[in-house]
């Protein structure tokens, strides 16, 4: 008995060792070229800013205090860093709405691709990514060309007589969201496709046999089955969108800062690397906790359905 138990345990250990070995290359690369160097940033967050950027090797908590509190430069009072809070909230809202919209557009698109005949699926998939071979800046400028007052859409509408004067689309929230959805679409569609492509339509058929409506089939069968794809897509859109600022500033006019701008300012003209470091570590911790909670909850729901 003990022997058998021992064998099973040894088998399990071997399995776990194999899994660690398999994930080793990815972990190593990330350790060397992403996460490891971040320790420098962590260290910097506890130092004093250098007079012209960089840091001085003096311990200081000013960076961390500056994340949450601000000293009014005119009356010297301390208060909650309201500027940081409002910039943070703006970025989170933008990311959230972008993620939801991308899902609403991306889900049907991925479904469409996944239900094409097998031979053409990869072609459709490529067609999603082809526009992204052009540079982000150029792509954003092209969107701008479409929605400007003298742009394509307004031009067509004016010519057709549907409107009398151009609709102001550029520099609006709508423009920012359109641009964001455009830019982040493949990040949603590709993972969705990856999990839909293997969708078992026998289950869908069973649903219809039980007289379910198409919407009920979608909600009760298809969505639970492709949940891993939805999770992956949402993560891939939401997190990078948090740091986005090129698209919002070109299409929205850039009058308000995004988190990305705020942090970049500290490493640039603001010359406050410790504050920049502390801000980004705060951001990373918030995102990481949110991600783990999200994946756990979504994941456990998924397995209940499965």
């Amino acid at each position, binding site marked *: 008995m003990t022997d058998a138990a021992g064998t099973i345990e040894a088998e399990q250990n071997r399995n776990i060792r*194999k*899994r*660690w070995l398999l*994930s080793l290359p*990815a*972990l190593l*690369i*990330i350790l*060397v*070229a*992403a*996460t490891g*160097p*971040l320790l*420098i940033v962590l260290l910097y967050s506890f130092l004093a800013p250098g007079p012209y950027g960089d840091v001085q090797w003096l311990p200081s908590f000013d960076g961390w205090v500056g994340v949450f509190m601000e000293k009014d430069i005119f009356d010297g009072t301390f208060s909650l860093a309201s500027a940081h809070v409002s910039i943070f909230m703006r970025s989170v809202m933008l990311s959230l709405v972008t993620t939801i919209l991308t899902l609403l*557009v*991306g889900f*049907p*698109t991925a479904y469409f691709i996944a239900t094409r005949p097998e031979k053409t*699926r*990869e*072609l459709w*998939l*490529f067609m999603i*990514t*082809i*526009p*992204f*071979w052009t*540079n*982000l*800046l*150029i*792509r954003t*400028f*092209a969107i701008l060309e479409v929605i400007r007052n003298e742009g394509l859409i307004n031009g067509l509408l004016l010519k057709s007589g549907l409107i009398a004067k151009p609709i102001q689309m550029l520099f609006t929230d709508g423009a920012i969201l359109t641009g964001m959805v*455009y830019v982040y*679409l493949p990040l949603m569609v*590709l993972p969705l496709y*990856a*999990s839909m*492509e*293997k969708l078992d*339509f026998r289950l869908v058929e069973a649903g*219809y046999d039980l007289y379910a409506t*198409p919407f009920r089939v979608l909600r009760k069968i298809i969505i639970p089955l492709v949940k*891993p*794809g939805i*999770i992956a*897509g949402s*993560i*891939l859109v939401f997190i990078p969108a948090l*740091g986005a600022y090129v698209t919002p500033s070109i299409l929205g006019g850039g009058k308000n800062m995004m988190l990305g701008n705020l*942090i970049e300012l500290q*490493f640039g003209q603001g010359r406050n690397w410790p504050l*920049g470091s502390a801000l980004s570590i705060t*951001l990373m911790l918030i*995102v*990481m906790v949110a*991600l783990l909670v999200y994946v756990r909850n979504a994941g456990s729901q998924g397995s209940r359905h499965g």
Partner: protein
Amino acid sequence: MARAFSIRRQRGFTAIAITCFFALYLPIAVLVFYSFNAGESLASFDGISLRWFTKAFQNQQVIDASIRSLQIASVAAVVATIAATMAALATTRTEPYRGLTLKYAFINQPLMIPEIVTAVALLIFFARIKIWTGYSGLGYLIAAHTAFCIPFAYLPIRARLENMDLTLEKAAADLYATPWNAFRYVTLPLLWPGILAGFMLAFVISLDDVVITEFVKSAGQDTLPTYMLGQIRRSITPEMNAISTLFLLLSICVVTVFFIVNRKRV
């Protein structure tokens, strides 16, 4: 049992998808159109000409930057996809084991921090290595790109793997297939759509990266995005559109070749 409708159909989905493709290619069409602009501007069209293509072909800096972008993106995407596939195999379809959650957070870490921060950290870290070893080649850029591409490749592959049936692999093992053969002939084909999706994402993400590249690059290592970043304070001319058009053309060639090769195999 024949049905009056296709069970695959969801009302409105096809319409949304077609609209989506249309919207995706509308700005691209505008972009291509302006690359043939005879004028200086991206905002007014002054007749058709090839001058910006000629200009792009004469601009050695742009040509070098384009080739460099493609080199980095291909190498980084290939390496990242291989590493991500292995990592995905190691972190799915298993009972929770110690360190699994940590591993998951770790693999996704490059996503979680604004690029500028990773960029500054890498600048400081790589500068030390550059001085210490005297090597300042493309290796640093490739390593950095590979690292931030891994989560983009990993998540689609993982999504594909999750709930993927173990029976076939078990059957293969029962038939005394070596683990490698079981992977090669059973798992890999099943996983292929995920790998392809992951690879394509990694490739375009690398192709588009500005901030990290800007901080990690050494002398003479501009990529197309950093070259364009340098121009944003000045003015962007249709030359950039011409280059983008060429990239689109290239992507279409790659897709075509991919499909011809695939047809032959089948």
